[in-house]
Structures are given as structure tokens and as C-alpha cells.
């Protein structure tokens, strides 16, 4: 899931001397303790922990689909094999029940497990390193109030040499920790710290570390593209703090679209976060890189004019893409600038249609978007079984040029072909 690509650090480690390597990578095991007694945890501390855990989206990586909360077992795909997330319930044998606060703090800050082994940085400890002692204690307190669930960690399934955890030590030397603003800068502290937004939205270098010089320039995650944030956002209308806060809390932004892919789960968790925290994050993220440049401003003005009916929408092409749109898409999305059946974002404003790559738009068309069974929210069926590869290309071309009014994507056919291979639909 998050952080799909595994750092390539190991590649450069071939030359590291065995001795130095052993020294670096050896860490003492922290003695097992008994979990804190029920009632010994101050409720206020656990409540604060709940707030941080929601912001950190911990449940998402540590809860397998259909599994018990925080019991781990989520497969994290990497180019080198699978990692499985761990059980962070207070079960003594299989979870973190035997971890002292000190052991937990060490893991949060340095990625060293209680028994001394290195955690892969799919666990975003570089972001957590700057959390205050109090914050970590709160998270610990909250997790210790969860129901202990016995669920043994699954063995990772990584190819040699990536399966040598000790190599992470060298990686850590080079790329840890991230820069996290102090708590006084609430938005930055949360966004860079516990919420680890950059873990998805910042591109990584060849060894899988975030490229701080390109912070929030957008990056590929699990076959999706986490779009650039702030001034570099491809959205037709720049984000405002208010709309971003709304989006984070509900997954729907009236002028940008609907959270899909990995971000859908993030917004589902953030729905329970403190609104003040979300506003702080939103203010920080919306402000990245300063105001939008004149080209984007002009585009925004033009888009608003079409929305209000004072300017005409982009010209429509005919052909197979238009026919598919009319029979498969227009029923909900109408002309792309209005909506009929749901309280949806006009399709023309969807960020995915304005991104450089058709990947996100294609994935939504293939897979659809499905809220949880009990949850009201934008819903779309997947079209993987309906449309042939050529029809996908046709309809995407139409969406891009005739609905969003953007220059044609040049890599459509290849993207469709490669993604259909990845996503053998049911």
C-alpha cells in the first residue's frame, strides 16, 4: 500500500564492509514487559492518542481487508516482493503487548523493533522521529487500550538481498530523519510528522528516499499517482484551505473530485480526526509553494467562467469515445459540467483528468469507487468488464480533450495495455 517502492539502498550496500555493517546494524533487544494494566492508562492520554492515530492513518496499513483492527497482515507490494504489516494490538505474543514505552519510542523514532531488528521504512519512522515524547506516549497509550488480538506476523516475501533487514541500517545513515516543524507550527508538524503526507506525495530517489528538494511534487504509489500538492497541483482550480479540509474529512471536494485509490482509505480515517487538525493540515498543504502561477490562475478563471455559464465548455469531438461517454458516463456525469444523480464533483474538474498521466483516471474507470457498505458517498462501478482496451483509450481521450479540455495524453494506449495486464479483472 503506502510506500510501495522499496528503497534501492541495498544496491549500494554491496561494497559496505561486513564489519562496519555489523556494527551499524546491531541493536540491543529491549526486555519484554507486561502490558500496562487496564485502568493504569490515563483516558485523556489515550484520547489524544486516538487523535494522533487517526491523523497517522495507522489503521489503514495495520488492518488487513476484512481483518481485525490493528492486527496487521496487510500485504505491501514492492518491486522486490511483499512486506506484511505487523500486529500493533497489545497482544503479548504476537503484538506489541510486551513492548515498553521505551521500546515503542525507539521503534517510532528510529525504526528499530523491540527485539532489535530493523523495520523497513515502509513504516514511516523518518516522519515520526520528530514526534514529541508526549505524542508518542499518547499513541502508545491508545494502542494499549485496544483489544489484544492474536495474529502472528506473516513472513515477508522479499527477494535476496532485500530480505536482509540489517541493510536498512545503511539506508538510515543516509536518509533519516525527515524535517518536521515543531509543534507550534501545527499544520506542518502534523503534515510532516504523524500524518506523513510526503510519504506518498513526495517523489523518491533511486534508493527510495523522499527527495526533499521536490517535496510534494507528486509520486507513484501502488499503481496510482499521488498528485502534486500546493502550487504544483494539476487541479483546474487551486485548492483552498477550506476545500482541502472538507476533502480530508469527507473524501469529496466540490471543485476537485473524490478521493479514490489509497487516498480513499486515508480520508475515511481522517473523517474521525479533529477538524481543527484537518484545518491546520489543509492550511499548510494548500500553502505549499505559494500562490498558483499566472498560467494556472488563468485556467482557474476560465474554468469558473464555464461553470457559471458565462463561457462555453470545450468543444466536443464525436466518434466512439463520445458514444461510450453518452451511454456509460453521461447518465451520472451529464455533460461533465453539471451532475444529475449524485452530489458529485463536475467531472471536468476532476484532478485525474488534468494530470500528466492518464493512470489515475484509468484506474477509476477500471475499478470504480466503492464506499463502505454502510457509508453514503460517491459510488461508481468499475468498467473493466464492459470496455475493451481500445474503448478505454477512446473514452479516456474523449474525457481528456472534450470534457476537461486539455491537450491529448500521448501515452494512452501503452498505459491502458500495461494496466490491463496488471489488473486482470474479475
Amino acid at each position: 500500500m503506502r510506500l510501495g517502492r522499496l528503497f534501492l539502498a541495498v544496491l549500494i550496500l554491496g561494497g559496505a564492509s561486513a564489519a562496519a555493517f555489523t556494527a551499524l546494524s546491531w541493536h540491543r533487544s529491549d526486555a519484554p514487559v507486561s502490558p500496562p494494566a487496564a485502568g493504569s492508562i490515563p483516558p485523556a492520554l489515550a484520547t489524544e492518542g486516538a487523535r494522533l492515530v487517526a491523523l497517522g492513518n495507522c489503521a489503514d496499513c495495520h488492518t488487513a481487508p476484512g481483518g481485525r483492527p490493528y492486527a496487521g497482515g496487510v500485504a505491501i507490494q514492492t518491486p522486490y516482493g511483499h512486506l506484511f504489516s505487523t500486529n500493533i494490538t497489545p497482544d503479548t505474543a504476537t503484538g506489541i503487548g510486551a513492548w515498553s514505552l521505551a521500546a515503542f519510542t525507539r521503534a517510532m523514532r528510529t525504526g528499530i523493533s523491540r527485539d532489535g531488528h530493523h523495520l523497513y521504512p515502509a513504516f514511516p519512522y523518518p516522519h515520526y522521529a520528530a514526534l514529541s515524547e508526549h505524542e508518542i506516549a499518547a499513541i502508545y497509550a491508545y494502542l494499549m487500550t485496544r483489544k489484544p488480538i492474536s495474529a502472528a506476523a506473516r513472513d515477508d516475501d522479499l527477494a535476496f538481498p532485500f530480505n536482509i533487514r540489517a541493510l536498512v541500517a545503511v539506508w538510515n545513515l543516509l536518509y533519516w530523519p525527515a524535517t518536521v516543524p515543531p509543534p507550534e507550527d501545527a499544520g506542518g508538524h502534523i503534515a510532516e510528522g504523524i500524518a506523513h503526507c510526503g510519504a506518498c506525495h513526495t517523489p523518491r530517489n533511486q534508493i527510495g528516499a523522499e527527495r526533499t528538494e521536490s517535496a510534494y511534487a507528486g509520486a507513484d504509489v501502488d499503481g496510482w499517482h499521488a498528485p502534486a500538492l500546493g502550487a504544483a497541483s494539476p487541479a483546474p482550480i487551486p485548492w483552498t484551505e477550506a476545500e482541502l479540509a472538507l476533502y480530508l474529512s469527507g473524501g469529496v471536494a466540490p471543485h476537485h473530485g473524490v478521493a479514490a485509490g489509497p487516498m480513499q482509505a486515508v480520508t475515511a480515517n481522517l473523517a474521525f480526526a479533529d477538524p481543527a487538525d484537518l484545518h491546520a493540515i489543509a492550511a499548510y498543504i494548500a500553502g505549499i509553494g505559494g500562490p498558483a502561477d499566472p498560467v494556472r490562475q488563468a485556467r482557474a478563471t476560465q474554468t469558473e467562467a464555464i461553470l457559471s455559464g458565462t463561457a462555453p465548455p470545450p468543444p466536443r469531438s464525436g466518434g466512439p469515445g463520445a458514444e461510450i461517454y453518452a451511454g456509460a458516463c453521461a447518465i451520472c456525469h451529464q455533460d461533465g459540467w453539471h451532475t444529475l444523480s449524485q452530489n458529485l464533483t463536475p467531472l471536468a474538474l476532476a484532478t485525474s483528468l488534468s494530470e500528466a498521466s492518464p493512470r489515475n483516471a484509468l484506474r477509476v474507470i477500471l475499478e470504480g469507487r466503492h464506499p463502505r457498505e454502510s457509508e453514503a458517498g460517491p459510488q461508481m462501478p468499475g468498467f473493466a468488464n464492459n470496455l475493451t482496451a481500445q474503448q478505454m483509450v477512446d473514452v479516456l481521450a474523449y474525457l481528456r480533450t472534450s470534457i476537461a479540455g486539455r491537450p491529448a495524453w500521448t501515452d494512452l494506449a501503452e498505459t491502458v495495455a500495461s494496466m490491463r495486464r496488471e489488473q486482470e479483472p474479475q
Partner: protein
Amino acid sequence: MIAIDINGRSRSVDATPETPLLYVLRDNLKLNGAKYGCGLGQCGACTVLLDGKPVFSCLTPVGSLAGRRVRTIESLGTEASPSPLQRAFIDEQAAQCGYCSAGMVMRAQALLETNPGASDTEIRARMQTNLCRCGTHMRILRAVRRAAAALGSASASPPQAGMRDGAVK
């Protein structure tokens, strides 16, 4: 006129290419199986098979079907001679109003054709797309399991005891 292959027959229909298949099936071809439930791809009442895979016919433009094969519930069996899956729905009395039934049958049919020994979890996951307001779900599951058990290999496990009923005299 558009030519489409429905239930193994080529039919020529007078419809514009964007017309959703559902309307062509019901209105032009006078087939009852696929139902209008939402027209939005949210309920599954209109489910048919396209090249063996389940699709919402309400969101499938008829012009996109050249060279592809559509199957509706009418292709499975008849009242006099129902298919094994239809038989299982009758045996389990897996309907109340039954408006969702045809869509349920077709989605389950697609599953059993590729995975005759589908597990309970797999059946539930696959049927998630289709709505039933009458609360007939448990019976639908039983019917699909019954058909799976009949179709699956001899070693396939019998239907699970998901429901037990009794009458006390």
C-alpha cells in the same frame, strides 16, 4: 441498425449507438430478465454477461458491443427446464419479490463458470455488487452454494450450515 450477438443469435436492433444495452434488451428485444433498478450501476438488477463477465447493462452502450457476446438470463433455462443455478434458486425459494433475482442469478452464474467451487467468502464478495431490498440474501447465498456444490468437483464441500430452521409443533 446495430447488430449484436445476444444469447448466441445475431440480432439487429434499431437503436442509436449510445443506447444502454438494458433498454435494447427490454424495449427492442422484449426480454424481461435484465431489470431497470437504478440505471446508475449501483444495484445490479440489470446484470448480464458480456464475453462471460458480469456487467451492468444499464451502463453498456449498445454501440460498443461489436464482436462481443451478450448473455442474459433467458439463455440459461426455462420455467419447464431451469438451469442448475436457476433450479437452486427455486429449491431454496430464494426470492421474495424476486425483482433482484435475475441479476443475482447472472452474477452468480459468471462466478460459477470461472470458479465452480467458490467459497462462501468468495460468493459473498462477488455478490456485493447486487442489492436486494427484501432481505433474501441468506437464501441467495444458499442457492449459489447449492449450485456450487452441485457443479463443483466431487470433493467440493457441501453447502455450509449458514441457516438452520425448525418448526415446533
